[in-house]
C-alpha cells in the first residue's frame, strides 16, 4: 500500500485499472486507492507483468504489498511479498509499495506476511514467541501486544490446564459468526444507545379497563363486515386516545433538543412496526384530528408499505410521539426506549382477561384489561404531568365515545 500522504496510515483498494497478468509500462495507471475522502490513481513506476496481491475492497496499512510488477509468480523471491522499502529496484521483482519512512518493522525481525505492531514483534522476539502462529486481534488481523502476551500465558499455563487458554476461550460459545449490521440496523443501534445513554428516563404504568373498547370494536366490526371497511384495532384506539390527550398535554408532545424544549403545533404519532431485521416507525400525521377509521386505514397502509419496503422518507419523519405495541405476542407490559428527541413513548401490552375487584359490588370479576406503560424523558416531562397525561388516556379508553368523534 503506497503512502499517498505523510499522515496516511491505511488505504482501501477501490479498483484495479489493470488485470492480473497484464503487462504494464512505466507511468501507466494501475490502481485507484481511497484514503480518508480522497481517491487517488496510482501509477506504475516499473515495467512488466502485473501480479495482484490485494483485492478490491481491501483496506491495508501503508507498506503492505498490494501487487508485484515485473516478476513471474513462480520466481523464488516472488512469494515473500515483503514490504521492503522500494528503492528504485534493480531487482526483477519490485513490490508496488511506497517507501514507508517510519518503517513499521525493525528490519531484522521480518516475518513473512504477518501484520504485527512493532511492540508486539519486539516482545515476541524477546520471549521467543512465533508471531506467525498467532491470530491477531488488532485492526485487519494485526498482531498486537495482547496477542503475544496471551499466547505466552497459554504456553506457560500450569499442567493442570492442559488445553491452551486461548483455544478454550475461542470455543466456549461454540462457533461464532459475525453478522454485519445493515445501515438501518446501525441507525437503530446508534439511536437506541444514544437514547439510553443520554435520557434520564422513568416509566409509569396504568391498568386500563378495556370493556367499553371491546364493545365498541364489536360494533365497528359489524359495520366493517357490512361496508367492507377495516375495523380499527385496539392499537388504533390507543393511538387516537394518545393523540387527543397529547393535544391537552403539549409537553408530552414536545421534544428536547440542545437544552431547549420544543413544543409542536401538530400531533403526529409514530407507530412502531417490526420489519425484517429492523424497526421502522411510520407516522400518522395529525392523529388528533383524524377519525378513528382514518387512523386505522392509514396505520395499516403504512405497515404494509414498511413490510413491502416502499415506504418513503416523509412518511417516516415528523413524529412527535411514539406508540409501540407488543400485545400481539402476549406481552403483558414492557418499557420501550424513547425515540429521541421525543418526550415519551407509550408501550402497549396485550389485552387480557384478568381478575379485578368490581368497584360497586366488591366482588372479584373477570375484565378485559390492558397495561399501558409510559416512558418519559424527565428533562421535559415530569412525573405529575406524565401521570395526568396517562390517566387521561385511560379515561378516553374507558369511555371511548370520544374516540369516534
Amino acid at each position: 500500500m503506497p503512502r499517498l500522504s505523510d499522515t496516511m496510515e491505511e488505504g482501501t483498494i477501490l479498483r484495479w485499472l489493470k488485470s492480473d497478468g497484464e503487462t504494464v509500462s512505466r507511468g501507466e495507471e494501475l490502481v485507484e486507492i481511497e484514503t480518508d475522502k480522497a481517491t487517488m490513481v496510482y501509477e506504475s513506476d516499473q515495467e512488466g507483468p502485473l501480479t495482484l496481491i490485494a483485492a478490491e475492497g481491501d483496506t491495508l496499512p501503508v507498506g503492505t504489498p498490494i501487487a508485484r510488477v515485473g516478476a513471474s509468480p513462480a520466481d523464488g523471491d516472488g512469494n515473500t511479498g515483503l514490504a521492503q522499502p522500494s528503492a528504485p529496484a534493480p531487482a526483477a521483482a519490485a513490490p508496488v509499495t511506497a517507501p514507508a519512512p517510519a518503517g513499521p518493522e525493525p528490519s531484522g525481525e521480518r516475518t513473512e506476511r504477518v501484520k504485527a505492531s512493532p511492540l508486539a514483534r519486539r516482545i515476541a522476539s524477546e520471549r521467543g514467541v512465533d508471531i506467525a502462529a498467532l491470530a491477531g486481534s488488532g485492526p485487519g488481523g494485526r498482531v498486537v501486544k495482547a496477542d503475544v502476551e496471551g499466547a505466552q500465558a497459554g504456553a506457560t499455563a500450569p499442567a493442570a490446564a492442559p488445553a491452551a487458554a486461548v483455544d478454550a476461550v475461542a470455543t466456549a460459545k461454540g462457533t461464532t459468526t459475525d453478522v454485519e449490521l445493515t445501515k438501518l440496523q446501525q441507525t437503530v443501534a446508534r439511536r437506541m444507545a444514544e437514547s439510553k445513554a443520554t435520557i434520564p428516563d422513568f416509566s409509569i404504568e396504568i391498568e386500563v379497563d378495556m370493556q367499553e373498547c371491546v364493545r365498541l370494536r364489536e360494533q365497528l366490526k359489524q359495520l366493517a363486515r357490512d361496508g367492507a371497511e377495516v375495523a380499527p384495532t385496539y392499537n388504533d384506539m390507543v393511538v387516537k386516545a394518545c393523540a387527543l390527550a397529547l393535544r391537552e398535554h403539549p409537553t408530552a408532545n414536545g421534544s428536547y433538543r440542545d437544552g431547549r424544549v420544543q413544543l409542536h403545533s401538530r400531533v403526529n404519532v409514530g407507530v412502531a412496526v417490526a420489519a425484517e431485521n429492523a424497526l421502522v416507525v411510520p407516522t400518522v400525521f395529525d392523529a388528533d384530528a383524524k377519525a378513528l377509521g382514518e387512523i386505522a386505514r392509514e396505520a395499516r397502509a403504512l405497515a404494509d408499505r414498511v413490510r413491502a419496503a416502499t415506504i418513503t422518507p416523509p412518511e417516516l419523519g415528523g413524529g412527535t410521539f411514539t406508540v409501540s405495541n407488543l400485545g400481539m405476542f402476549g406481552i403483558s407490559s414492557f418499557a420501550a426506549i424513547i425515540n429521541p428527541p421525543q418526550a415519551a413513548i407509550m408501550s402497549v401490552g396485550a389485552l387480557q382477561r384478568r381478575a379485578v375487584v368490581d368497584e360497586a359490588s366488591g366482588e372479584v370479576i373477570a375484565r378485559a384489561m390492558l397495561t399501558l406503560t409510559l416512558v418519559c424523558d424527565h428533562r421535559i416531562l415530569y412525573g405529575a404531568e406524565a401521570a395526568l397525561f396517562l390517566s387521561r388516556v385511560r379515561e378516553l379508553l374507558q369511555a371511548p365515545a370520544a374516540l369516534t368523534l
Partner: protein
Amino acid sequence: MSGTSAPAKEIWVCHLGKVPYEEGVAMQEQLRARRQAGELPDMLLALEHPPTYTVGRRASAEELPFPPAFYEQKGIEVHATDRGGRVTYHGPGQLVGYPIMAAPDVIEHLRTMELAISAALAQVGIQARGRVQDGPDYTGVWVEDRKIASLGVHVSRGVATHGFAVNVENDLEPFGWVVACGLPDVRMTSVASELGEAAEELACFRKRMAYAFCEAHGARQRLVSASRLGIETKVAVAA
C-alpha cells in the same frame, strides 16, 4: 505549502454559476488534463449544481434507500462519481468548489480545504472545525455535531479534482433521504440555518470562500472568466 516557493503564486478563481453535474465533471476532466500538461496554473471553480445525489465508489446500494421513482419524483438526479467518499447531495444554494490543482499530499489537500472553509465561516460568525481526530468518516467541516460542508477528491497524476460543498442556503431535506456520507443520522446544517435572517447570500459567501481558499494556500487570488480557461462554450457531456 504546495511546492512552489515563489511568493507570487496565484490561484485562478472562476465563478461559473449553475452547472449540471455531468457538465461539471467533463469540465474538470478537460481542465485537469491541461493542468497536468502545465498549460494552466492551479484553479478553483466555484459553482452550484441542480439537485443531484452523487455516489462515490465505496457507497453501497442501501445508502440510497428509497425506490428510484421517489428521487425522480423529487426532481433529483443520481450520478456515480470517481471522487472519494460515499453519497452526498448537491443543490441550488449550496456552494460547490472544485480546486483543480497540484496536490502532492492528498490528505494535506483535504485538511487545507477544511481550514479554508472554517476560516470563511468564522468571518460570518460561525464557529466550525474539521474533525480529523474522529476518523476519516468525519472528514468535512462541522458546527458542533452538525455537518456544514462535505469533501471528496480524486487525484490523478498529481492533480486533484472534485473538492468541497458548503451548505449556504440550500434545502437540507434531501440529505435526510439518503445516508449522507455513510453516517446514518448525521445532522446537516447550513449557513442560513445557523444564522437565520442574518445569513448572507450565496453570492457573497462564494467570494469570501474563494478568497479564504487562496489564503489558506498562501496564494493570491486571480479572478478569471470561463473563457480564459477555455470553457466558455458548453462542454459536451461525456457519453
